[in-house]
């Protein structure tokens, strides 16, 4: 659906994106992760036909973003980072205007359906200027969804929202992402992890990693880590777990907690749980430790920074 090949964009001497290539398939939610100024917005602006690249090529649904820009724009829904809204229009008026620009048949029905999707039907007649930030974000999302695009490009869709709104927006994205291609940028790792099928990590205009959230995590730690809590003393139990085949490391913690680690791909949690029960312990809690994506991110982006310092 999205195919990007050796794409670069220079602003003067600065390389905003530097020779990046990636693909996104239909029905895939692709996360674009990176610190501020990494080139996420620039990439998205090129894909949506807002600006041309300096070199390289990109196609969406087989159409070139430069030479067949209008065809691309018909098939893409885009939510820019600064949600572009006419504050002096009503929600309905704004979406009707955008539907007309896209030549949608039965525009009024379509607007209502879309407002229902984002949960704003009751605010249709309200002025955009009077809406809260979260609601504006949803109006922007509605605008991107109006024409039921094949490809949805969302630049930081949950920024500035409260936790409840974030969950709502994520649910909409997840729903939409089932049959469409979604590309979303974020600098919140847990968001990328929860929503995305695949993550691209970009830093200083270059893609530094590309994989599924699980694999990225495994790649950094080289292991999967599980946190467990039982009733009672854990020292003896820790020893038993340590003797199991495939367990790499066991760390007893205070108050009946312990953490163990095994190689990615071979899930040892059921075996460990069985062992706990057979050893007459009460198993209270068992969960994966998910902080490692944060660590990956920092490590990948820090390495780059460190290398640059060395070069200088």
């Amino acid at each position, binding site marked *: 659906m999205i195919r990007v090949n050796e794409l670069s964009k220079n602003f003067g001497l600065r390389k905003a994106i530097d020779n990046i290539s990636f693909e996104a398939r239909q029905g895939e939610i692709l996360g674009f992760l990176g610190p501020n100024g990494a080139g996420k917005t620039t990439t998205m*602006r090129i894909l*949506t*036909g*807002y*600006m*041309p690249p300096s070199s390289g090529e990109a196609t969406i649904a087989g159409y070139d973003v430069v030479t067949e820009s*209008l065809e691309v*724009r*018909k098939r*893409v829904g*885009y939510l*820019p980072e*600064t*949600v*572009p*809204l*006419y*504050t*002096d229009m009503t929600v309905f008026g704004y979406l009707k*205007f*955008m539907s*007309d*620009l*896209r*030549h949608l048949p039965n525009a009024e029905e379509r607007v209502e359906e879309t407002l229902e999707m984002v949960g704003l039907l009751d605010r249709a007649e309200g002025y955009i200027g009077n809406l809260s930030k979260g609601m504006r974000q949803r109006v922007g999302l509605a*605008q991107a969804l109006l024409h039921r695009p094949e490809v949805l490009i969302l630049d930081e869709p949950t920024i500035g929202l409260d936790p409840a709104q974030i969950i709502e927006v994520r649910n909409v994205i997840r729903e939409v992402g089932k049959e469409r291609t979604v590309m979303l940028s974020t600098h919140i790792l847990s968001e990328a992890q929860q929503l995305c099928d695949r993550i691209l990590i970009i830093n200083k205009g270059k893609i530094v990693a590309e994989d599924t959230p699980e694999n990225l995590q495994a790649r950094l730690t080289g292991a999967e880590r599980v946190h467990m809590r039982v009733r009672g003393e854990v020292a003896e139990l820790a020893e038993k777990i340590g003797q199991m085949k495939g367990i790499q490391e066991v760390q007893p913690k205070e108050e009946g907690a312990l953490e163990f680690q095994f190689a990615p791909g071979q899930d040892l949690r059921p075996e460990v749980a069985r062992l706990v029960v057979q050893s007459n312990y009460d198993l209270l809690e068992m969960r994966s430790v998910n902080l490692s994506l944060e660590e990956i991110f920092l490590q990948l982006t820090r390495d780059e920074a460190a290398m640059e310092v060395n070069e200088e």
Partner: protein
Amino acid sequence: MRNIWTIAKREFTNYFTSPIAYTVAFLFLAIIGLIFVLNLSYYTSNPFGYADAPDTRMVTGPMAFLLILAVPALTMRLLADEVRMGTMELLLTAPVRDFELVTGKWLGAFLFMLVLIAITLVFPFLLDQLVRPGIDQVLMVSGYLGIVLTTAALLALGVGFSAMFSNQVAAFFATISVFVVLWWLIGAPAGILPVGGDFFRYLDLSSQVYDNFNEGILKLSSIIYFLSLTSLGLLIGTTSVEIRRWK
């Protein structure tokens, strides 16, 4: 075509909620009305008795000049404000060609101005009731045609300059500077140069209005002048939008 109309329609309705547009409309109509009343009282109170019957030039003449001031105030916002609000990104990623965007903006403003110009028809109508055997209708039609063409050309230039700037005030001053050049300065060499004076007289906007349309003289070359100026303005606008993409 449809996109041009969609954009024009939004822009046109937008003017009716804009304080600047209301101010411009009020001043435009009030000044023309005032000049009309002053002219009438001049004719009626002239002790020597006036030979010529008053005609519609006393409406179309000042109106042409007022356009120089009214147009920049109406066009400054058109594209500059889209850039400021970030909605330019929306329009430039919608399936709309750059020239459709610029032309739509121009058409919206043009329709609004046409409403104002239509309202001023009340003055020729009043005059027609006052003088016998009625006003010179050829002069009126020609004068108004000149006004409509001038409006089209000035608005196009205004839209063009609005596209160059992301600040309305900058757009306003750039536009009005160009109008000053077109209205006063560009014709100046006509009186000085030994040869080629006609060329500069042709480029002179005020001469095109006052020497031709306002005197009831319709020339193809004058119509071409205004249509060229309109196209130039829209071209400047489209090019500026395109340049904005590359930046």
